């Protein structure tokens, strides 16, 4: 066991939990109406609590149990066999379990952005837990647990495919199944508190250091470089998005800048262990421009109310980065270099295949899970509840009490 690596992963685990609670929760909550602020916070919080237990009970085993190329089996349910002294690589296995748990929390929490302001709370909890176990955990195994995508040579350092493509695609499917918010696209209401969104985004930025540099699972040069490219990409994404807004509307908005930053982060995630600083710069710029464009298209062309742009920012960003890693991993761009026998072309094939397989898997299973759950519980709230806001109706609370 290596104490230094352990120290850094203990820290990274705290940072990644911080990304969801309160980071992502605030990022999302600032974007909805004030009557739904608590409901968004509660979605993220309840997902964190229930998914943690599900990860402990079964999902960790599916993801990282010994198993085969498809899943890890049930041998590690309830952390069976994992004691104070168990190790995983150079760190305690309990810590590896925790670090990975924080990824399992944030991934379904990302999906929340698709269905805010109109979904029933019971559905959110049930869906998220089942989705994490059935959709997410196997993908983790395929890519990081020694499964078939790992064997194919897929490069996904910190979760472009595992986290962002799964969440983004599933979000799109759910948004289509659920239908748009009342008044979409012309009369939905503007974000009630963009400052809250900025606070959450800032926490995501900071926490992402744990996400990406922590994925080195060591306190070394790889972690240092991962942090560097992550940061540069975030900054470049923010700038790219802002420039797009300036060109189009002559104003750069705070919500736009922070969204571009998140796009930059999603884009660099799969590449953060493979590319050098120039790669980080290019990926961030590309992420900002392309996610911006897709955001407009989903809303305006396809009229899909993926309310907080999960697909456009995370799904597209994650996929884009996964593809671009095949270019910028090359030592020609100061990247870490290809695995033996790989080149840009062959790597690109693997990357694309990984994206397609995981996207289809996520889409189909999300559709099935939601279709079945709808039979047993309310999917979408009734119109009166939607109009009044979910805080009072679902949770009996109000976000802001003044008088």
């Amino acid at each position: 066991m290596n104490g230094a690596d352990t120290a850094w992963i203990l820290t990274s685990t705290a940072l990644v939990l911080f990304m969801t609670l309160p980071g992502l929760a605030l990022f999302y909550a600032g974007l909805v109406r004030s009557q739904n602020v608590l409901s968004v916070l509660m979605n993220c919080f309840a997902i964190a609590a229930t998914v943690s237990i599900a990860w402990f009970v079964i999902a960790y085993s599916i993801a990282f149990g010994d198993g085969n190329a498809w899943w890890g089996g049930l041998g590690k349910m309830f952390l069976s066999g994992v004691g104070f002294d168990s190790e995983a690589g150079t760190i305690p296995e309990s810590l590896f379990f925790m670090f990975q748990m924080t990824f399992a929390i944030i991934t379904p929490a990302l999906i929340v952005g698709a269905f805010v302001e109109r979904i029933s709370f019971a559905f959110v909890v049930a869906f998220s837990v089942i989705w994490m176990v059935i959709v997410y955990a196997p993908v983790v195994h395929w890519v990081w647990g020694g499964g078939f995508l790992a064997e194919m040579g897929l490069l996904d350092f910190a979760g472009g495919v595992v986290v962002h493509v799964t969440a983004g695609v599933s979000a799109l499917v759910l948004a289509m199944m659920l239908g748009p918010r009342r008044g979409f696209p012309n009369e939905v209401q503007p974000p009630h508190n963009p400052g809250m969104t900025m606070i959450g985004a800032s926490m995501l930025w900071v926490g992402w250091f744990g996400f990406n540099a922590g994925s080195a699972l060591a306190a070394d040069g790889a972690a240092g470089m991962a942090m560097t490219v992550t940061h540069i990409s975030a900054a470049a994404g923010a700038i790219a998005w802002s420039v797009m807004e300036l060109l189009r509307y002559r104003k750069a908005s705070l919500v736009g800048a922070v969204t571009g930053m998140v796009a930059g982060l999603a884009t660099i995630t799969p590449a953060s262990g493979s590319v050098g600083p120039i790669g980080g710069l290019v990926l961030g710029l590309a992420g900002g421009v392309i996610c911006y464009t897709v955001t407009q298209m989903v809303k305006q062309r396809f009229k899909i109310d993926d309310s907080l742009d999960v697909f456009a920012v995370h799904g597209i960003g994650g996929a884009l980065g996964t593809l671009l890693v095949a270019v910028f991993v090359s030592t020609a761009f100061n990247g870490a270099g290809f695995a033996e026998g790989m080149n840009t072309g062959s790597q690109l094939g693997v990357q694309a295949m990984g994206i397609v397989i995981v996207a289809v898997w996520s889409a189909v299973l999300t559709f099935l899970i939601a279709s079945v759950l709808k039979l047993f519980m309310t999917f979408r709230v009734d119109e009166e509840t939607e109009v009044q806001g979910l805080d009072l109706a679902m949770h009996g609370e109000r976000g802001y009490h003044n008088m």
Partner: protein
Amino acid sequence: MKFIVAIIKPHKLEDVREALAGVGIEGMTASEVKGYGRQKGQTEIYRGAEYQVNFVPKVKVEVAVDDGAADSVVEAIRNAANTEKIGDGKIFVLDLENAVRVRTGETGPEAL
């Protein structure tokens, strides 16, 4: 007595308050409101979605005055609130039948 309701631009509140003091009025009640009129709201754009915000922030000032003071009060408000730009607001004059000071029970002009 008259009950005068003025809708003004928010940053004019202090000017109006001072102008009222200038004509001897030392009591008033203000509140935040949103106005719709010739001055249009702005379009706010978040992530490419355009939100038409139709109402603009205004402040409402309510002041009860003796009949004799009504005209000078209206004039004072108008002068203080005027920027000669669209959206400067309106002053409405209603008849006030009675006024009571809670603390003392005084009624009529004494209560103001």
